[in-house]
């Protein structure tokens, strides 16, 4: 039984349909990447999985042997699936440390605690008392990842965490994924940057206009094959 199994997921914004019959699956400790152009539906997919986007229909949404299609995001987080949201969405009236420790609210005790997060991101301890609005984009992204890890997820979804960050910081964050996976945490990474996605993921799903147009093991595809699926040129 896979950790996450999704069948026939459709998502809507009023009259507009954003996702069409998405199916995907993910095993324990596996890492998949969801790639696609702007507006392909990647963020909507992640938000639908964690219960933030409720305007959807799903034939099956199974996580850790439980049907979670009707559960609220808070319940799903307590079961061990959470999201590092697009744009980081830190709590602006909380300090750095408060943004991290609030992850304990999920009630999941495990490998990740405050000192391990500080060890993973050595830049954070000296910023602990600072308001998050005064941090750089890279530092904010570390806090956002740390906050999610503090819930000790079995499955962590990451929405465009490299967006707008300097390449050296992106590399540092992606290097940390190895350590996260080393603890048995499965990952779903949403990226616009194909090479970044291929470097970390075991398998990829390529979305275009709200549907999966290519899926399989990262190693089986050439860059050109992915690029043509990404931009919709495979029939041309």
């Amino acid at each position, binding site marked *: 039984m896979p950790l996450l199994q999704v069948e026939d997921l459709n998502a809507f914004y009023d009259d507009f349909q954003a996702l069409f019959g998405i199916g995907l699956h993910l095993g324990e400790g596996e890492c998949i990447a969801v790639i696609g152009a702007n507006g392909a539906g990647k963020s909507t997919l992640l938000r639908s999985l*964690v*219960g*933030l986007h409720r305007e959807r229909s799903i034939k099956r949404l199974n996580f850790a042997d439980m049907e979670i299609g009707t559960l*609220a*995001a*808070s*319940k*799903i*987080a*307590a079961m061990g699936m*959470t*999201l590092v*949201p697009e744009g980081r*969405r830190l*709590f*602006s*009236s*909380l300090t750095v440390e*408060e943004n991290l*420790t*609030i*992850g304990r*609210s*999920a*009630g*999941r005790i495990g490998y990740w605690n405050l000192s391990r997060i500080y060890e993973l991101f050595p830049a954070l301890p000296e910023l602990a008392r600072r*308001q998050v*609005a005064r941090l750089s984009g890279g530092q904010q992204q570390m806090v956002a990842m740390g*906050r*999610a890890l*503090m*819930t000790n997820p079995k499955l962590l979804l990451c929405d465009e965490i490299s967006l707008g960050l300097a390449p050296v910081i992106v590399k540092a964050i992606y290097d940390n994924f190895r350590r996260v996976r080393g603890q048995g945490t499965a990952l779903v990474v949403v990226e616009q940057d194909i090479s970044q996605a291929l470097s970390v993921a075991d398998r990829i799903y390529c979305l275009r206009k709200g549907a999966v147009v290519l899926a399989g093991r990262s190693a089986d595809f050439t860059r050109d094959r992915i690029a043509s699926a990404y931009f919709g040129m495979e029939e041309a």
Partner: protein
Amino acid sequence: MRSVADIIVQGILLGGLYALFATGLSLVFGVMRLVNLAHGDFIVVAAFAAFCVVSALPVHPFVAILAVVPFMAGLGYLLQIGLFNRLLGNNPLRSLLVTFGVSVILQNMLLMIFSADTRRLSAGSIETQSVDVGAVAIGVYPVVVFAIALAVTMTLQWVFYSTSLGQRLRATSDDPEIVGLVGINHLRVFAIASAIGFAVIGVAGVLMAVRGNFDPFLGPSRLLVAFEAVIIGGLGNFWGTLVGGIVIGLAQSFGAGIDPSYQTIAGHIVFFLVLLLWPDGLFPKVAHQ
């Protein structure tokens, strides 16, 4: 003619009661951006609840606070779960219309149960005791009320900034959607915030019932004072709300010093002036940059 010192002292002490009227409103708005137009009527409900307690049991009104506060907190919790949580969203008109309806219902329910008679709770000799400080006679009861307002403000400030409950309340206020990702149910946090706000309403209602007359239709005027104090102080800021209450109290005290009929209008004029000069209030919330 009263001395200026006397007017200032009375005004500040009156401001303590006004701050208590306003704190629950400030809290509920600060955490969930919900404007409760029935806020003043709930203060009157608390006053009548205290009236029931002291009518049924031979206890001092201050003891009645111990019964009224949990009653109001429970009422706030249940109303939030059952009603107010359904009004949240992008359209502020929904909460305005529904809470206005609640206000009308409460006034008429109180009228049916308690009639239109004006009531007052007697707290005994404390009401008339005073201490002479120089030329100013300071009433003991207003000092007690002010001290309670100060204690409530300090307690809320402590809860919000030094406890894990406060951490959850502030995070939910910042982003009610994203708290779900760390396992927090924002609707439950809203219910807790509402319970705390209603607990403060309970304190305010009992203290008001001892200080002066009340009847089922007093709510809207209490709401007005509460709104003015909250807006003067800056939305969602407890110390600001206390200062806002004191500003209104001082303005009314000076107005009454000129002519007793100017008391109420003086408060409104000062509110209007503050709004004109500092539209975000004296202490706008600084956390959001």
